């Protein structure tokens, strides 16, 4: 099997894998970085979102051979201590439930905010519609994105 050199979270890592192995499984199994999640394997749910040269991509749809010449950022690389503004906003808005989809949600939100520091609700709908949450955390997720942007949070529900 061929060997590839990946740049993951600023570190160069050599991995041996079949050329068509999705980046997702290289991250999770070859590199032991399990923060990036497997949800569907078809690019439908967004649980596996990572940044490739800063853009959010489904890592289940990127063969390792295609990732070799790009910068890969995963949830582990966003900030180890949870201090990225999106992560802080997630905690403040009490977004997570089971938490399984949230790595992907956070990576999508971080990419959105990097390109659009003050997204509208329509921007959020468009950017986040590829990320499924079966716990239904969408309302708080939206509020957290507004909070991370430093904007007035949308209504959070409740009293």
């Amino acid at each position: 099997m061929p060997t590839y050199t990946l740049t993951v979270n600023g570190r160069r890592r050599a991995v041996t894998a079949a050329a068509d192995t999705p980046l997702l499984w290289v991250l999770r199994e070859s590199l032991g970085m399990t923060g990036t999640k497997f949800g569907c394997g078809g690019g439908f749910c967004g649980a596996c979102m990572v940044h490739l040269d800063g853009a959010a991509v489904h890592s289940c749809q990127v063969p390792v051979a295609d990732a070799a010449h790009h910068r890969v950022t995963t949830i582990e690389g966003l900030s180890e201590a949870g201090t990225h503004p999106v992560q802080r906003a997630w905690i403040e808005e009490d977004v997570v439930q089971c938490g399984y989809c949230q790595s992907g949600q956070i990576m999508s939100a971080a990419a959105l905010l990097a390109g659009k520091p003050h997204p509208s609700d329509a921007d959020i709908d468009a950017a986040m519609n590829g990320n499924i949450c079966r716990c239904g955390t969408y309302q708080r997720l939206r509020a957290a994105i507004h909070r991370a942007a430093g904007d007035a949070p949308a209504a959070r529900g409740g009293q």
Partner: protein
Amino acid sequence: MNAPGTMARRDFLSVVAFAGSGLVLGVHVPTRRRDGAPDAPGAEFAPNAFVRVATDGTVTVVIGYSEMGQGILTALPMLVAEELEVDPATIRFEQGPAADEYKNPLFGLQATGGSSTVRGMWEPMRRAGAAAREMLLAAAAARWSVPRSDLVAANGTVTHGSSGRRASYGSLTQAASKQTVPTDVALKPASAWKVLGRRMKRLDSLPKVTGRAQFGLDVRVPGMLVAVVARCPVFGGRATHFEATAARAVPGVRHVVESPSGVAVVADGYWAALKGREALSVTWDEGATAAQSSDAIRARWVQLAQQPGITARHEGQGADALAAAARRLDAVYEAPYLAHATMEPMNCTARVTAGAVEVWAPTQFQGVNKQLAAQIAGVPESAVQIHTTLLGGGFGRRAEQDFLVEAVSISKAVGAPVKVVYSREDDIQHDFYRPAVYNVLAAGLDAAGNPVAWTHRSVSSSILARFFPQMFHDGKDENAYEGAADIPYAIPNIHVDWIRDEPGVPVGFWRSVGSSHTAWVKESFLDEIAAASHTDPLELRRRLLGASHSPSAPRLLGALNAAAERAGWGTAPPAGRARGLAVHESFGSFVAEVAEVSLGGDGTPVVHRVVCAVDCGQIVNPLTIEAQMQSAIVYGLSAALHGAITIDKGRVVQTNFNDYAPLRMAEMPRVEVFIVPSTEGPGGVGEPGTPPIAPAVCNALFALTGKRVRRLPIRPEDLQG
């Protein structure tokens, strides 16, 4: 820690062990039977919770239940903190093993389901905290030779009022361990609560926003292989032959072995195992249902529904009263099979060695996991360790055992630790589905339009007959008609019956179980009565609940009125929109929802706003309750708008999130949750928000379009003129 079972069984509270590092408390409460009666004298007392206070003052709560998003890793520490007088944010939690000590006293099983954890642990966890606090206070009183009554416990510290002397809990643990365990600790009255009822942020957020949280799929065991299983696409079929040469030739594939559910390809990693499975050739005996389809099942149920079923409820003259009524309404309501589709696909890791089994599982049912793993591996239960990981969603799916059976069997077969991973397609096509249900309803109205008769016959499969056969008696499965048989409205003649049919599609517990369909049928058909009698749907429900003898009626009415008021029922909705409402009791809680809908340009329904009022008794954490209502509404809305599992040629047609579509961000309505104040005992929170949403939306669509939705999911063509 010593086994708690070695302690005197009649002790209500016992110190179960004195670890060198501090005070360990176990709370013993008698396990209640399902009928609520106490156990017979002399029956075993099951300890079921543990609190540790270490010498450095760290408080650890050991939790024997599963965190699947519902927030128990926050709620249970809050219960302990309230009585122990510590800041709940400082409490650590530890996942407990599969052990009798962690049986939920609500039903005597170590399982997380039925919205039961806080209900079951509401008292034991507080008693554990209170007992620890009293022992720490007694230790301080002895140390300072002062009366206990002069001491105050707060913020992890005991303070002597007049002298101002202070001692941290950590410094008192050794002495506290030697104190007598209080047998009759009074719990704080609600008026003194400082933690319960507080809007407290989750304690498990940080690992979940940094990718460090460990779910089942994230488990790594030295030497572990990954298995993907080829299962017969038709339920009940089996492999008769397989040809594995090509599969074994895939780099990374180590073994191809039979497993109880098919043929397992075992490899170094998931991708190799998946490619190995693609290269595998299996000959299936597809069994008796290979030609089955959803249409054929429906056609049989139409016939079956013409005969009487097993009576679930009979009041007054029952169906006979229909003939005497001035007017009769008839309707058929059809709900589909539904998959759970948790975000984390099914998986389980097992390591079977000579004489022992270790299992790492995102599971809702540790108690049975342990029994089955022991049986399969041929070892005593005492040689089985179950490690509960975080669950990437549960919704009832992870109460099943299929993933555990496969992991243990395959690990045993290949002699290595094995993680079984379901692809998303495996997960959707090999589920235990929310039962499809065919419902035939009739109502009789008197001359004034009041309902005087209500009949409801349903045809579906039984969950209990397979899952809990010991609870399936006389052909009755209460889960099939819960929420229908106990219709709370004041109607003098009622007949509810059920016909069981088993077309071979496996069915299981799905968030809110029977109420996931009965609430839709009951609340929709009641709306039909309101429309037929030209009565406002809120007014009809108020009248029928006001006159009801059901003990649930006042709380249903309270939730209904709260939701209606906050939704502005009776005022004009925004242009192009209409409102609908529904109210339902499940898992000891009472939830009313008002949905505000419109039709999009392409004729598809758009849900803009949902107002939810929940009476779930005394509460632990409003932030969690609001989150769970939002969550349950999204889960129910996903099903109402998009959810259907259909069968063709004996197979599930749907494959992945492209054709089994959950709600997404752009479809998310604004949800407003109001918690009805209550002094009643706590009700469930994880599930009761789901049942009312489908009928609230369908009733709103009727108000908007005049079209009654009688089959789910909602199809735009059913809303056309």
